[in-house]
């Protein structure tokens, strides 16, 4: 539904008012706490910060591609007619979802990657993060596909679609829309989870901020811009997802 001009104006006014209110509140909290903010010391490290941010973006972009691929493969495998394949994929999904990312990163990097003679933390970090989020995506995809009812499959059969055509023209287009909100939520998680990659020595944003904080003898100054830097990526992603959802909306 296209929003009218007055409703857009009203929303804008409210947003500004709320933003102002929240800013004042934050200001009040920061001022009344005993912490001494020292922004000058932190500002010197802005280039390091930017570098960390770009590293994070690179890893996240790579991990998103990996996670969607892994998600699709695991979903197809978990629905396979071949029992060992199905069991294996279910097992992988449950194992990955049931254990902490921290443990997976440490074991994956220091044991598995080491045994395979891989030693690029950047590459391994991207793969491990993609694998972790891919397991969640697999379940989101599976739920979406299985939510398309038997009556739609039957209708597709009745008009003469083959199995491939049924998936291509009937099931996937509808499943895509249902998977969208969950998937974007997962991709936002992926971005935030990338902060754990510091444990395998990748100098992404969080690690950079830690270095920055210790080098400049400040305690917390790095973390405020850190939150903002994450929001710069996650907010547009959420907004974009909402626009896509509207475009795919056809059920009333």
């Amino acid at each position, binding site marked *: 539904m296209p929003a009218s001009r007055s409703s857009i104006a009203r929303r804008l006014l409210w947003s500004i008012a709320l933003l102002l209110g929240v800013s004042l509140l934050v200001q009040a909290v920061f001022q009344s706490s005993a912490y001494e903010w020292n922004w000058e010391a932190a500002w010197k490290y802005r280039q390091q910060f930017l570098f960390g941010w770009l590293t994070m973006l690179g890893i996240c972009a790579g991990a998103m591609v990996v996670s969607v691929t892994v998600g699709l493969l695991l979903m197809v495998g978990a629905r396979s007619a071949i029992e060992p394949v199905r069991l294996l994929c279910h097992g992988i999904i449950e194992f990955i979802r049931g254990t902490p990312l921290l443990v997976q990163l440490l074991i994956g990097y220091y044991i598995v990657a080491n045994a395979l003679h891989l030693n690029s933390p950047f590459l391994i970090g991207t793969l491990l993060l993609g694998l972790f989020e891919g397991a969640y995506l697999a379940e989101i995809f599976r739920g979406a596909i299985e939510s398309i009812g038997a009556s739609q499959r039957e209708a597709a*059969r009745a008009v003469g*679609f*083959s199995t491939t055509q049924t998936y291509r023209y009937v099931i996937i287009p*509808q499943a895509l829309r249902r998977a969208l909100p969950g998937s974007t939520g997962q991709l936002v998680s992926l971005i935030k989870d990338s902060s754990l990659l510091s444990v395998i020595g990748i100098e992404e944003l969080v690690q950079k901020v830690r270095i920055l904080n210790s080098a400049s003898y400040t305690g917390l100054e790095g973390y405020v811009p850190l939150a903002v830097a994450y929001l710069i990526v996650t907010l547009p992603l959420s907004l974009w997802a909402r626009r896509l959802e509207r475009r795919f909306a056809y059920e009333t």
Partner: protein
Amino acid sequence: MKLEASGVTKRYGDQSALDGVDFETGSDARVIALLGPSGGGKSTLLRVLGCLMTPDEGAIHLDGRKLPNEEAESLVERRQNGFVFQGYNLFPHLSALENITLPLREVHQMSVGDAYARAVELLARLGLSGHEHKRPAELSGGQQQRAAIARALAPKPRLLRRDEPTSALDPVMTGEVLDVIGELAAEGQHIVLSTHEIAFARQVSDTVVFLSHGKALETTPTQRFFEEPTSEAARQYLQGLSKYR
């Protein structure tokens, strides 16, 4: 057309939806109505006739040709026939027009222009001009039902199968939809339908197959079925239906 069933059985778990259905219509049947109480096997029989299901036992012959049990052959068979579901089952992500053109293009290899022309023509004939680009959710129940009929008619099927065409419609829409089916029958379209609209079945069909408890109890010309039903179950069914009409 001539429709024959011999020993058709379909079980769901330990429940038989069809329990050895045997019947044979005359070779000049045009519109066959499947009548009978709910749960008697009408929908299941229609699905078997539509090659959407294969029977556990028995066979169906259409004009002397056996309906296939094997999936690839069933697909070929389904492509030559139209099926309209009780719940319409339009594709909700496509417009009324696309619901018709997509199978025409992808299944029947029609060109984009030809498919479009055929869909527009059919929608106009079924009174849906101006609604071509609406999605199913934007159409009323009767309009959805007519769009579903248009989709089933688009590839010029030899036989149209319809499951309870009016069960989800109010009386006005029921009238609209029945008019459409009546017109199709008058034009010579072969139809098999299951219905509870007795007056309509009486008016439009020439053959009745009466199903009860998974068995075909009677197969007779329509007029005779209504005037002198031979089975006790059919007599009770007709009496029950006429009680409040």
